[in-house]
């Protein structure tokens, strides 16, 4: 079949892709071929990133500079050293450093018992110490990397033999091994030491690389490569290795500092380089004998070792964060908005339980602040269920986390009010918020396995919650825990109470989560995709459960989901979110039967096919959901909207009330001053 297909025959997705084209993409065909071949245009920015990163991290920069300085000194030793490190001058022995009485500028740091210049010996010592540790690291890395790859990828007997070898080596005392090799050699050269050090360090790399290979080779992309018929070596080197090797230089850097110390240690116990070759360890050992007369002889090599190891550690630590950004953890740090938290309420019982006004939640980043939730307002009456529907990145989860004030740093509520039981949750203090969480507001997340504490039994977790929130005594708490599980229709509560979370199925775990959240009888329950990780039949069971709980307990629910059909079964009101905004909100039947916003219409249309007949083309919403870092100034749906007008690109529409309790943010709904828009309005209706 000829593979050339004209663009026009491809589907609507092309339209979407052309909207995200960069300007340079529209060049002629010849230039395209060139563009295909140039491979390394990302490199300069990578280096600039690296520079900026270092400048922001003074300790890493300092460490790196110090280490490079030491390495330069070692490299240029013959040019820098004022004396031959081996040249003895017995007339000048035991000279103190220049600043002490009797010191001379000829020997800046003094001399040793044989009259050798200490400074020159230290400079040459750096040369030997660094050469040996660097070479050992390189050799150990190469050995460990190769063994780890083979062991992890081929598994089976190969893996068993190699890993047991490593175990034996780890069990065998290092010093014994060092003595066995070094003490019997008549002449100990750097090669001897490199051999000893690298053989003792390969196992660390091998183990880490092996476990990385194990996890990577199981991933779909490696499976896909095998399904394509790629040979094992091709899968290993072309697919697995590029995703594995990054860890190695990081461990190697940390290992380097350690090996500097070990090398000095071996020299110190006379297992290092044969005298008179200077190394920091031997200089230190020489100095120790004359500690009382000439303390500087021991202090300077000690300082050299300490400085080197410290600079390597600082640099390695900083670089690790750069190469593996996952190591940097954000801290949980909530900053309440300024202003009074107590609201002037008239204690009106008929008022809403939760009332949100103009809520905006931002995530400040280096590139600028991302508005994940934008100017959201709604009311939730007691005992009602509000369903929030949206696609990934629409801000629906952030909305839930904003209400319970559990945003991950640096996310924070930037403006607006979250009125709940007479308080403004955006402004209450941290202690009070902690008391409200759990007691008055409960939250349930998508992945129950990750939400439960894996090392505590279900019973222990329920017990703790009950005793904290309901102030029950242990015996009472046990009874209450059993009741809580029975309330979510767990057939044998006693077995579940004794079980650890991993022993329960996903559906059962989620029931436990619900029981936990309900244990303190909260007035509001926030459910973030509570059934999305479950099978359809389990999901159906759980939804029935939630519906009956709602009738019995009368708690309000904020039910977040990507599935509008699911929400239509449980919610009283449905809010549709797009790009951080509520684009439509209203009573369930109205939103589903007469959707006002083009996005809601398209969403419902996309879902219809589940119940509709097959074998026709699906109507699609062209393009992708907007990138939250680059939201358009006008209506965020305008680029994908079939009814888009010039005004949509310029002005973000405000919500328009179309029926009691039903509003939508769309220019089509604005009473139209210009006749030209009528056509589009009719098309919509």
């Amino acid at each position, binding site marked *: 079949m000829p593979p050339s297909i004209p663009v026009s025959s491809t589907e609507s997705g*092309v339209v979407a892709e052309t909207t995200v084209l960069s300007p340079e*993409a529209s060049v002629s065909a010849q230039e395209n071929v060139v563009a295909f071949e140039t491979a390394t245009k990302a490199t300069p920015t990578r280096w600039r990133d690296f520079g900026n990163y270092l400048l922001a991290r003074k300790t890493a920069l300092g460490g790196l500079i110090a280490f490079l300085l030491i390495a330069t000194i070692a490299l240029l030793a013959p040019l820098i050293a004022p004396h031959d490190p081996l040249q003895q001058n017995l007339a000048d022995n035991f000279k103190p450093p220049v600043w002490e009485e009797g010191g001379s500028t000829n020997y800046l740091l003094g001399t040793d018992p044989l009259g050798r210049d200490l400074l020159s010996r230290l400079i040459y010592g750096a040369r030997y110490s660094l050469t040996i540790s660097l070479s050992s690291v390189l050799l150990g890395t190469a050995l460990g990397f190769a063994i780890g790859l083979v062991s992890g990828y081929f598994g089976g007997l190969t893996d068993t033999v190699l890993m047991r070898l490593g175990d034996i080596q780890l069990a065998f005392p290092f010093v014994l091994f060092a003595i066995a090799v070094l003490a019997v050699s008549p002449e100990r050269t750097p090669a001897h030491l490199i051999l000893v050090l690298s053989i003792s360090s390969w196992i660390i790399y091998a183990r880490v690389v092996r476990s990385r290979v194990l996890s990577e080779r199981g991933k779909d992309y490696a499976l896909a490569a095998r399904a394509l018929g790629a040979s094992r070596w091709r899968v290993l080197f072309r697919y697995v290795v590029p995703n594995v090797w990054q860890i190695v230089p990081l461990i190697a850097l940390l290992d380097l500092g350690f090996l500097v110390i070990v090398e000095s240690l071996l020299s110190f116990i006379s297992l290092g380089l044969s005298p008179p070759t200077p190394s920091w360890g031997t200089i230190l050992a020489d100095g120790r004998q004359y500690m009382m007369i000439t303390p500087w002889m021991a202090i300077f090599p000690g300082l050299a070792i300490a400085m080197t190891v410290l600079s390597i550690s600082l640099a390695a630590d900083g670089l690790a964060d750069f190469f593996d950004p996952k190591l940097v953890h954000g801290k949980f740090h909530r900053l309440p908005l300024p202003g009074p938290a107590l609201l002037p309420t008239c204690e009106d019982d008929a008022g809403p339980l939760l009332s949100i006004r103009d809520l905006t939640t931002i995530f400040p980043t280096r590139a600028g602040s991302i508005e994940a939730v934008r100017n959201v307002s709604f009311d939730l009456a007691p005992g009602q269920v509000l369903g929030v529907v949206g696609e990934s990145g629409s801000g629906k989860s952030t909305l839930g986390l904003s209400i319970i004030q559990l945003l991950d740093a640096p996310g924070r509520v930037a403006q607006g009010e979250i009125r709940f039981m007479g308080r403004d949750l955006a402004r209450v203090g941290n202690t009070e918020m902690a008391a409200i969480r759990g007691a008055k507001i409960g939250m349930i997340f998508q992945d129950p396995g990750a939400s439960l504490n894996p090392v505590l039994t279900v019973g222990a977790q329920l017990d703790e919650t009950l005793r904290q929130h309901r102030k029950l005594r242990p015996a009472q708490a046990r009874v209450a825990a059993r009741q809580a599980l029975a309330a979510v229709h767990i057939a044998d509560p006693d077995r579940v109470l004794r079980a650890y979370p991993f022993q329960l199925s996903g559906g059962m775990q989620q029931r436990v989560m619900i029981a936990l959240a309900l244990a303190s009888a909260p007035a509001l329950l926030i459910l973030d995709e509570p059934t999305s990780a479950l099978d359809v039949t389990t999901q159906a069971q759980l939804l029935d459960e939630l519906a009956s709980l709602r009738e019995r307990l009368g708690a309000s629910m904020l039910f977040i989901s990507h599935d509008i059909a699911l929400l239509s079964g449980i919610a009283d009101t449905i809010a549709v979110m797009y790009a951080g905004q509520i684009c439509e909100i209203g009573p369930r039947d109205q939103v589903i039967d007469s959707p006002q916003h083009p996005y809601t219409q*398209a969403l419902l249309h996309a879902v219809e096919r589940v119940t509709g007949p097959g074998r026709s083309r699906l109507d699609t919403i062209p393009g992708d959901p907007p990138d939250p870092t680059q939201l358009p100034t006008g209506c965020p749906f305008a680029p994908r909207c079939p009814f888009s007008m010039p005004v949509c690109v310029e002005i973000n529409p405000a919500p328009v009330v179309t029926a009691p309790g039903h509003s939508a943010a769309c220019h089509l709904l604005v009473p139209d001053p210009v006749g030209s828009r009528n056509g589009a309005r009719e098309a919509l209706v």
Partner: protein
Amino acid sequence: MTQPLLEVRDLSKHFPVRKGLLGRETAAVRAVDGVSLTLAPGETLGLVGESGCGKSTLVKTLLFLDPPTGGEIRFAGEPVTAVDAARLHRHVQIVFQDPYTSLPPRMRVAEIISDPLRIHGIGDRHSVERRVRSLMQEVGLNPERGNDYPFQFSGGQRQRIGIARALAIEPSLLLLDEAVSALDVSVQAQVLNLLRDVQERRELTYIFISHDLGVVRYMSDRIAVMYLGKIVEQGPAAELYERPLHPYTRALVSAVPSLRRRGQRIRLAGEPPKPTDPPPGCTFHPRCPMARPICSYQAPPLKEWLPGRLAACHFALEGLPPAGAIDVGKGAA
């Protein structure tokens, strides 16, 4: 009838369960247990089932990524064994679920799509380049973005890259393992349309695996329902949906949240059984609302109850409304 493209007879994949110090084999997890399928060229077979039912294992076994422990696979009439599985990889390709893990993160898109061609030694440098561009165009990607990395694309676009990679060597059978399940509804429809277009244009045969019954129904000519390693029902898509024979299929169809039909779900009792310890008799009987004594000791065979419609249930025709009586999803015109 023309020769089937793929014939699977009694395919099994059992994983040994080892216990004790010596690792003696005490039992086996029957992840795939005696599955038989036939695929005609150009048709789409939907495969539905919940997590742990063995559908993903079946896919891996079909491709010999995990060699089967029993049964026979014939491709275009020829039996395939583990030794000549490479022949199969020339004609059968797979698209995975997760657009984030199914593409090698550190390879450029053009390399990803062209690697299959290089593996099979198809074409020279220039023809490969041309081929990559036309493939990208065919799946609705901008061919100028060949130098970009997967992370620079959205989920839907990544799935298109995965499809282009699978199409590169012009296979005749495509296994779509939850290929749209990770995508947002609005993007899902685009990719489904693309798969349809590609199928028509290239006369491809599909096995479409999903837990989402709506999507499977839209894509498939025939559907097979899996439960605990076995196929419990098989039949033409529309009929299977409107008049499901097996009580598990009935529960599955009724559990799908719907905009129009609220509340009237068939509620299954209990939990899905553990594959290490399946119940005796019919594996579904502990959860089945229709179970009778015979179900607990005698496993029902998969047999043809109605023309073209197979089910593994002793009472498949029981409570089955006459054709056209159920109004499942007629509301959406």
